């Protein structure tokens, strides 16, 4: 009996190991995840359909998804704090944004400073607000950028180079031809070529990929891609910030609500600061009221030259 006891125990142990391993394997291969309590999504949208719809247009300076990422938080804020249902409306070009506004397809629109300043008759449009910069002024610059490894250090070296620009209806798309080159005694003819792209970020990618020697974009876009190897070569003079413009035919209560809600935001107030910091950097310092004359004055020389 004693002689077979040890083998019996060993066999029993092996059997025990086998059975437990089998059970463990069954449990191990059951990878089904437990039911997770489902989150409740935002309920704001439930009430918006009952409110009067206000469409807000945006010039096509960015790709549609980038525009939504940058401007939808402002719509969300207006929907939360306002009494209407604010909705973004894209445009296919800068001019299209102006046309939609004038034609009543949108009630207000984020326009470019250049195109607003160059409107022949802008009496029907009313600037509501424009974003502030770090100096607390509503100004921005266009900047000439190139790759970090490029030998380009000034505008005067652009001779014979390929330059990428954004929309010809934007300040960034015009500064070089109207001011930048002339200041150093060059003209467009001295360049190898100029090519306009729809969006600022497309200009950046073209430069980073080496397709162009330099380009002009908004300074906020240049700052965003600085860590990706983009270097600023020159900076334009300051021009008024891109305005949010309303149409005079729109109910003034609507425009007043938009103006009030945007201008009340105070970057020094903690709650407002938290909200603004969640927005795109271009709008993270709040807004200020602007006047049409600021834009007319800023682009008067150009207008006179045209």
């Amino acid at each position, binding site marked *: 009996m*004693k002689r077979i*006891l*040890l083998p019996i*125990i*060993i066999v029993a*142990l092996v059997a025990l*190991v086998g059975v*437990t*391993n089998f059970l*463990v*394997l069954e449990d*191990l*291969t059951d*990878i*089904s*995840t437990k*039911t*997770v309590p*489902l*989150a*409740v*999504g*935002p309920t*704001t*949208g439930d009430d918006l359909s009952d409110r009067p719809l206000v469409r807000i247009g945006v010039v096509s300076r960015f*790709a*549609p*998804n980038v525009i*939504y*990422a940058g401007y*939808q*938080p402002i*719509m*969300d804020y207006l*929907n939360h704090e306002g009494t209407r249902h604010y909705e*973004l*409306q*894209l445009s*296919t070009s800068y001019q299209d944004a102006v046309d939609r506004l004038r034609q009543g397809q949108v009630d207000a629109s984020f326009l470019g400073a250049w195109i607003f300043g160059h409107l022949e008759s802008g009496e029907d449009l009313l600037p509501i607000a424009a974003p502030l910069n770090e100096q607390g002024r509503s100004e921005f610059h266009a900047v000439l950028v190139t790759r970090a490894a490029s030998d380009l250090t000034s505008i005067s070296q652009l001779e014979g180079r390929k330059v990428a620009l954004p929309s010809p209806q934007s300040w960034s798309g015009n500064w070089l031809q109207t001011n930048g080159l002339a200041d150093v005694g060059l003209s467009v003819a001295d360049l190898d070529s100029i090519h306009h792209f729809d969006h600022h970020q497309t200009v950046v990618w073209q430069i980073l990929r080496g397709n162009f020697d330099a380009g002009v974009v908004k300074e906020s876009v240049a700052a965003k891609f600085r860590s990706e190897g983009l270097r600023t070569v020159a900076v334009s003079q300051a021009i008024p910030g891109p305005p949010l413009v309303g149409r005079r035919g729109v109910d003034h209560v609507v425009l007043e609500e938009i103006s009030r809600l945007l201008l009340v935001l105070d970057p020094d107030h903690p709650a407002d600061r938290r909200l603004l910091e969640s927005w795109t950097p271009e709008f993270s310092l709040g807004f200020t009221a602007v006047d049409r004359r600021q834009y007319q004055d800023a682009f008067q020389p150009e207008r006179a030259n045209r």
Partner: protein
Amino acid sequence: MRVSGVVPQGLRARILLTVGLTATVIMMLMSWSMLYSWRGSLVLQEKTNAQAVSRAFSVAVIDALIFADQDLFQSEGFLGNYVDLFMAQNPRLRAITILDPAGSVVARSWHRTDPPWVTGSLEELLRIDRPLSTITRTPEGPWVLETVLPMRTGERGWGVLVLAVEADSIRHQIRRNFTLLASFSMAVTSGMLLLLWLMLSRLLGSLRALVLAMDTVDFTARPIPVLPYRRDEIGTLYKHFHIMQQRVEQSRDDLMKAQHQVWHAERLAAIGRLASGLAHEINNPLNGIRNCIYAIRADLDNRRQTAEYLDMMDEGLTHASGVIKKLLGFARKQQAGMGPVDINEPVEAVQRLVAFNLGRKKITLEMNLEPDLPLVSADRQLIQEVIMNLLLNAIDAVQESGFIRVATLSRDGEVILEVNDRGHGIEAGQIDQIFDPFFTTKKAGEGTGLGLSISLGIVQAHGGSLGVTSEPGVETTFTISLPAADFEDGTEVEEETKP
């Protein structure tokens, strides 16, 4: 059932069982904990990957939905093409479904017919505000990892993207790793047990060698055999066993010396007991010699008488000298030696020594010695000492004019010597103690109490036995049995051990 009846009693089996069981349990627990932890990581990684893929795909989908929202083009065909291309580029994808915020299907892979959804109902899917991945087994059999990604820009919802990825490969990977780890654990455990078995075999082999050495140790061997040298604990055990052997040998030598001293002391004590009889035996011839000297002095010229008395004096001196010679022969501390002994010879020698003591008490000694007894292998001196002790005890036990009978005989290969006295006998309560050292019924100074104890030791050392029967007030009989020896081939003496 008792535990001791289940657990093997062998040291090797018990160690192997204990270590094997412990190692198996530890390896199993380690393997399982590693596998469970690894499974968690794998599932989490798969979910993360699925959500990353979903997010990547959602960028294009949101763009398309935005364009559709802006009435720039119809999204259905555009997105359907997206879905098909994406499915073709990702073989693990099983299904893609794009829902608008109202829950209507905008686009989906052609071979998917949902609902039911794995994650929850359509209403629940539309309310999810963060990516959610669920793994489950579909009713059709295969396992799927379904990821639900709410597509939002700020608070603007574009709908829900649902991606189903096959999850059977996860299970296969888990099973493969389990097999690998289980095999590794078994191999490690088996290897460890094999190594342990080999070590135990070597260790127990050494112990068995030690046990064998202990069983076969020869204390008479010179020098004492030394076990093989080892550096480990077994070697220490060997070394200390050798030291113990030496100490036992030393103790044995000391004991033998002490024993011989005791024997010699007891012999001297027996001589003391003989002294009174011997003194009388010597005194008689001395008195005769003195009388002869008086007679010679009284008639110095009588040469015939002088010659006659001188002969008588010589005879007396010869007798006294013989007595002293016998006494010295008994008292001399001789070197012990084994040899063939006819037991009748020491009996007769002792008879001659105690004849004076017998005569003083007028004791009748009947000698019934069987002639031609087989020889025994014995130390004659020691056997003679035993017989002397028994006869003196018998003389002390009987009254004046008492009776003692000494008989020898051969029976069943043994030589038997009986000493019977018709004395006062031994009390029943004392008969079990008479062989104890220092037990005596005599008065102080008349006995050492060692005589019978030493006699028993001597007889037993010769391979024999010493017994006693007694009837108080009637008689006492001591019986010595010694094995008869065969000295025909001359080997018996060499093979006998010294007592």
